[in-house]
């Protein structure tokens, strides 16, 4: 049974998909409706599971034929054995985690490599809004200060310091704005960062 492949995968998810090798095992944390896993299954014979906290997303995953485990990421990945996945993906979720360090640590325990994406707080429009005296609201941080789920926002530079301090290897980085790669001054002109990392 094959499902029509959606080409409307979010640009960041497409970049992630490009890094994932065929026939591998992937754990997608905060997987939403499972569209990344559907894409990987249909184009690269990738198997794996999504993890989701929201029941409507869990139902959407099931409808999409994606294996999904309903779980709160902040409670850890205790259900998963060490080294049981080739890739562990955390897309646009890191910034809303209570225990960022533990989540990254767990991702690198469970997976051989981890792929993390987050909104870049250092994006110039964010900086400008702060300069004007406001908390930033932008394409990648679309919330007001009072209703945001984001509690740990960081910049491209912050994340790289974070990894360096823990000996985490940075294998790849892509910084995007509106789906397009930003090569010049990414911490200033990119609104979304995607990293491929490996444990020390």
């Amino acid at each position, binding site marked *: 049974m094959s499902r029509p492949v959606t080409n409307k995968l979010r640009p960041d998810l497409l970049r992630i998909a490009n890094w994932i090798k065929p026939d591998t095992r992937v754990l997608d944390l905060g997987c939403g409706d499972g569209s990344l896993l559907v894409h990987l299954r249909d184009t690269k014979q990738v198997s794996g599971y999504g993890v989701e906290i929201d029941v409507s997303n869990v139902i959407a995953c*099931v*409808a999409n034929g994606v294996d999904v485990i309903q779980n709160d990421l902040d409670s850890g990945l205790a259900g998963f054995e060490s080294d049981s996945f080739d890739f562990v993906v955390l897309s646009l979720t890191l910034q809303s985690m209570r225990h960022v360090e533990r989540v990254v640590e767990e991702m690198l325990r469970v997976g051989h490599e981890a792929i993390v994406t987050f909104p870049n707080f250092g994006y110039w429009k964010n900086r400008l809004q702060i300069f004007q005296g406001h908390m930033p609201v932008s394409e990648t941080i679309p919330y007001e200060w009072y209703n945001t789920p984001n509690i740990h926002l960081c910049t491209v530079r912050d994340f790289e310091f974070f990894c360096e301090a823990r000996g985490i290897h940075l294998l790849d980085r892509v910084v995007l704005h509106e789906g397009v790669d930003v090569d010049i001054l990414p911490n200033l002109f990119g609104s979304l960062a995607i990293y491929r990392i490996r444990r020390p």
Partner: protein
Amino acid sequence: MAEPNSVGIVTAQTAHFDQPLTLMSGAVLPAYDLTYETYGRLNADKSNAILICHALSGHHHVAGRHRLDDKSPGWWDNMIGPGKPIDTNRFFVVGVNNLGGCHGSTGPSTINPDTGKPYGSRFPLVLVADWVNAQARLADYLGIQQWAAVVGGSLGGMQALRWSISFPERIRHSIVIASAPKLTAQNIAFNDVARQAILTDPDFHGGDFYEHHTVPKRGLRLARMLGHITYLSDDGMGEKFGRMLRSGEYKYGFDVEFEIESYLRFQGDRFSGTFDANTYLIMTKALDYFDPARHYEHSLSKALEQAKARFLVVSFTSDWRFSPARSKEIVKALLDAKKHVSYAEIESAHGHDAFLMDDKPYHDLMRAYMTNIAKECAA
């Protein structure tokens, strides 16, 4: 008056088996009957059959009504029927009464052909694995080589899990709801209190009460009252009954005063009039003994390694009899064995009984999963 989305008026059937069945205990049932009901139509390649396994006090009557004036429909009527999550327009659904039961299948109250008297205390203990073996013979009888899915809640979920281990080739999907990989000491303790209530009832007569033309009603009533407390949650009970008094004031006595007392006594009375005490003992023992990991170095993931089914595991937040943590043990074992599994933890205030309730996210989830199975069958 036809009910929409109901399978309508249904009739139970009985299959007789002459081939002896050797039970896990070593005892042999030379011949036996299984009572079952079916809804929907088996498709040409016989790929759309769903087996519904019953829980502790359950039976084969899962959907529809036996007569127009039936007070209530089958016990899972909100889940099974045309257009319902387990859609009888697409699936051929089979409900079965397990061996040892008291709703038509051979059990302690059945006449033993060797003696001409009810089996009573002589009826052997049957385990979950025995039920699954008997159900496999029913599948043969119905011409079903492979179930599209085996579905069950609680003790029924244990059967769905056991199916995937005992007959990996004969089940495509195993749906395990509000269940556990084995009972905890606390679970077994509750079961034993229930059994002691029955065993110590003077009307029990060592299990041969049939010959004394009596029924250990008091024991069965207590067992059911205790069971009911564990199937509900404190919040759910509080919401429904609170400390409501029937008369509005304290009477300073031991008669029914609080609404919850009235409810439990009513449930206990009703049950003790219709259910067989020996069956209750057997079913609770089957629960206690269930532990598929036992023969696989006590590793559930080893036990599940040979499974070929895809799994859906569902738990309910307020279920403390079989808590979400117990379902997660099953999920963990399946993940370790690298099996296809999805797991949902449904918000509910209804405790263990939530799996029988009409809850939208729960039913949406079941519908989504079953729809994909239906697509496989049609392919």
